[in-house]
């Protein structure tokens, strides 16, 4: 019994490793907010790669490394899902950093085109993002950008894993995150 579970796990791992093309159309989301607080204060809230407590859906963050390229963090979401991200660029002077998702847990399994498909907690694939702060006098303009593909890597995606699902999920996170960041910084 135990053995068969293991082999199912291995097979699905293998499948995921093999079938990793991506959708044909990369998507983008860009959100900007002006915060009535100096840039240093805003930067102080977001600058630690290992601390994403300012993002509402995140329950906890654990980090390997620090604010250096190649460090990884695992975001545990309120619902228990996890997202692993790697820091790709970090610029203290410019108050900006860039990162990408390297792994995600799945939120559910659906059946599509005759196969079981796991829907990742964030329904995206090949996701890379960056956050930049720009001081404007006593205020700060925060820009959060991401480029990604839909979660479904083959042709004809199910609605849970198409471009629309990807865009609306990322949009919602960016909006909620920036609004919360503004609230925290303006306190």
């Amino acid at each position, binding site marked *: 019994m135990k053995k068969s579970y293991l082999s199912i796990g291995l097979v699905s791992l293998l499948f995921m490793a093999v079938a*990793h*093309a991506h959708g*044909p*159309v*990369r*998507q*983008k989301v*860009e959100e900007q907010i002006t915060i009535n607080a100096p840039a240093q204060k805003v930067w102080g809230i977001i600058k630690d790669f290992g601390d994403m407590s300012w993002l509402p859906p995140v329950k906890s963050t654990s980090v390997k490394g620090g604010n250096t390229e190649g460090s990884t963090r695992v975001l545990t979401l309120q619902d228990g899902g996890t997202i692993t991200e790697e820091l*790709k*660029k970090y610029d203290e002077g410019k108050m900006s950093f*860039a990162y*990408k998702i390297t792994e995600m847990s799945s939120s559910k399994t659906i059946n599509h085109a005759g196969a079981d498909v796991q829907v990742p907690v964030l329904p995206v694939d090949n996701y*890379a993002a960056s956050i930049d702060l720009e001081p404007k006098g006593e205020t700060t303009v925060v820009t959060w*950008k991401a*480029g990604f593909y839909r979660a479904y890597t*083959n*042709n004809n995606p199910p609605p849970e894993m198409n471009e629309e699902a990807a865009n609306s999920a990322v949009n919602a996170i960016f909006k909620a995150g920036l609004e919360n960041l503004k609230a925290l910084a303006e306190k």
Partner: protein
Amino acid sequence: MLKPKATARTFVLILIVLFASLASGAPFAYISNQLADTVSIIDTQSGTVVDTIAVSGKPAGVAVSPDGNKVYISTPEAKGFAVIDTKQRKVTATVKVSEGSLGITVSPDGNQIYVADWFNNTVSAIDSDSLRKAGTINVGQSPSGMMVSPNNRWLYVANRLDNSVSKIDTQKLAIVKTVRVGEHPFGLILDTRGDRLYVANVKSDDVTVIATATMTAVATVKVNMLPYAAALAMNDSRLLVTNQDDSSVSVIDTETLKEIGLIPVGDKPEGISTHPDDRHVYVANWFDSTVSVIDARNLRVINTIKIGEGSRGFGQFFGK
């Protein structure tokens, strides 16, 4: 105040000048804007977008016929490609090929169009006169960038998920040899003589240099984060590579195979092509929806042109 007759004469003169400049045909760049479902035409003399053509099906790849009269745009969601007539500046035909077209190229004699299918792992040859399929060949997984040798005899294709590049005999439509390259090869460029092939490996952040006669990898050159595609300029002496996640272009001396420059461009640079003057290199910045114009001699950006949403320009996008 000009007299009416003089005004009319001036007007005619202006018309003649205008017509002459149109007829002289400054080289144009044709860039696919995937998220906008359009193709922008840049007049490289004025450095402005002179027309925007609606192309449905999420346009991605670009190839221009050698005479400059036709532009072939792959449309992955329309599962084929669109043909733009450059004189009329409109889509004159759409061709369904298979399931998910991406890479597209045209032979130097203009007779064959090759379309790679990202999902089916095939390359189809299309006769450019009849726009009918001449044949289809199975290649490696997720075929991407393609180019045909100057003598029309060989087609090179990057097989992204197989980490390889294949050489295809265009007469037999059969693979002659496949060589292993870096991880996730995507865009590629062949030198003028067809001797050397450079392929950008998205995942291993490097470029593999291939000797085409033997199909052997002769060198690997490290570039920056997520290289996408490459172009050659200045008599093939310089190789320029777009680094998507670094918002830059790496410049490599093809003699020493050393990086001699890193040029900041827009965000998520993707497609890259060299102007027929062999000196200016155009880069489509996907995130910014702009085109950076690089002077490959001075290694400087000399112009940035706003174009459509999600500009990709994957392929050789210059026409006459």
